């Protein structure tokens, strides 16, 4: 059994090698770009080592989707007020399904960098001549590609067959998804990065992590669409980055918000990417300074 797995894995690598090598030969003239793409490839490949984990991931995702869709169906069948927020029963079910799939596609190793800082293993990255922020992002992108193929795609297939959901017909929705997903992903990555950077200044970061998870769960729209929030909270939620991570891609994809509204949100996403990008670089500079001047 184990030998078989090894043989399959070697087979996969042997086959993928040809195309990969050709790509990197072509990239030889752009060493920086080639490095980042290579990091993404290797991060993808590294995930292959943990086969059991992605089966569990698929099952977990399906369980969550089952729970939330059942919950929404129940709530909607027992209440009249719900229609007023703009969701039909089938609408809320497809929101729940796609929000969960997008959430799974974005899952990140948000404790990796923090662990490196806490254990001092970051020294091994600092002795290498590369941009740690760029390399971490590239690795994350590779991991995310892996999540798309091994978790998000199979879960989507199962949902289309067994749950009462369907894909939107209009190509505009897919275009909006591509743009809002990429921007949302970058926002999520940089929020995680900034929280990880805290480990340079505080020893015990657990409470900050808890805060981040809490805010993400509540305000990203992954579980409850923001339309259900009371009016006095909604404006405040618009001024923190979380709703732009899951709510905006999900709502634009399923057509809950119009393309015109989506464009407005994309502008906000762009502002957040720029703001957080700047903050990430500034904080990383300060962190490096702290590391090399104060000794971490």
């Amino acid at each position, binding site marked *: 059994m184990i030998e078989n797995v090894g043989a399959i894995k*070697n087979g996969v690598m042997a086959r993928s090698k040809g195309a990969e090598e050709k790509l990197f030969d072509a990239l*030889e003239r752009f*060493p920086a770009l*080639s*490095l980042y793409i*290579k*990091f993404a490839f*290797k991060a993808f*490949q*590294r*995930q292959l*080592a*943990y086969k059991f984990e992605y089966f569990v991931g698929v099952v977990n995702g399906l369980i969550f989707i089952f729970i939330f869709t059942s919950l929404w169906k129940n709530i909607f069948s027992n209440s009249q007020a719900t229609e007023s927020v703009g969701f039909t029963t089938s609408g809320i079910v497809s929101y729940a399904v796609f929000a969960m799939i997008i959430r799974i596609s974005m899952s990140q190793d948000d404790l990796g960098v923090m662990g490196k800082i806490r254990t001092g*293993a970051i*020294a*091994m990255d*600092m*002795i*290498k*001549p*590369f941009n740690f922020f760029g390399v971490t992002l590239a690795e994350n992108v590779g991991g995310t590609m892996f999540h798309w193929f091994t978790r998000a795609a199979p879960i989507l297939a199962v949902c289309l067959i067994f749950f009462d959901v369907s894909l939107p017909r209009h190509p505009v929705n897919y275009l909006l998804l591509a743009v809002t997903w990429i921007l949302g992903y970058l926002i999520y990555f940089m929020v995680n990065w900034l929280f990880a950077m805290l480990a340079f200044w505080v020893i015990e970061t657990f409470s900050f992590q808890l805060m981040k998870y809490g805010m993400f769960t509540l305000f990203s729209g992954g579980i409850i669409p923001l339309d259900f929030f009371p009016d006095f909270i909604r404006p405040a939620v618009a001024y923190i980055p979380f709703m732009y991570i899951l709510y905006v891609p999900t709502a634009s994809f399923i057509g809950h918000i119009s393309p015109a509204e989506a464009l407005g949100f994309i502008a906000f996403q762009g502002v957040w990417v720029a703001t957080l990008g700047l903050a990430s670089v500034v904080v990383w500079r300060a962190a490096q300074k702290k*590391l*090399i*001047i*104060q*000794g971490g």
Partner: protein
Amino acid sequence: MNDDVLISCQGLRREFTVAEGRAGLLGSIKSLFSNKTSVIRAVDDISFDIRAGEFVGYVGENGAGKSTTIKMLTGILTPTGGRALVNGVVPYEERVKNAFNIGVVFGQRSQLWWDLPMSDSLDLLRAIYRVPQARYHESLAELSDWLELGPLMKMPVRKLSLGQRMRADLAASLLHGPKVMFLDEPTIGLDIIAKDNVRRFLKKINKERGVTIILTTHDMDDIEALCDRIIIIDKGKIAWDGATARLKSDHMQGKILEVEFHDYNPKIHEAVGLTEMKSEANKKWLRYRGDGGAALNEVISALFRDYCVKDLSIHEPKVADVVKAIYQHGAEVGEDGGA
């Protein structure tokens, strides 16, 4: 400064500010509100020059300042004072530029990717250090031959034994052909055979590739087998700096007597012709110089006559003993850099 000086430290100093903890519950509550700090000087005015091709042992007890010095030379720590220069680059000012010139191996940490086969880790490093394909393959073939990496190439790093992992890390640190190599305890935890392999390899790259090596270790056998020069650092200061051969000729003539006394530990009077190196419980390590003075047999019979000796054994002095003596008594020996 001499032309072939590759690494140079001048008055290098590094202080750390540490928060003072207070004992007890009340103390820890108090320390929440006041931040009393104290300054620790980890590296205190260190100066040395290392020439191209030297193999230097950088030795000291835990906390003596070895790693702090190495961190400053690899560019991941800025000194509080003084200056360091590695291959013409100030490492902490141009970390990335310096990183291209140096190879680093930390015995306690790996620079390889845990989940990747070794060959993929090496391929990533090729991209990081921008080594051209042709040079990479040549360099890898040579390193793989010396370190016998062939059978390990397809194995994920997490499945390698510590000895295999160290060989892989050594190859990883040398792929880009650095002129300088920093090794922090590369033989820690290895068995005798693996240690021997690592030592033979290090000797080879020092001699054949001409790589300048700074090695920190607690294993004095490493030093004895490898280093032409020893720098002993104690409490942040250089306690001794010179050729290994000179350390031997100055401190390792004669014999070491390990003497166990009957339930007491006397003070040995000078007349016996022995100097005390170390003492614990009712045991003493005494040094017999043998330059002029009484013959060894006379010294031993005097010892038996004057004291209640339970057991006695005679050893050849080892670098470890000498280094220990220097830690204990400080640098009573004159130091000079020009080994």
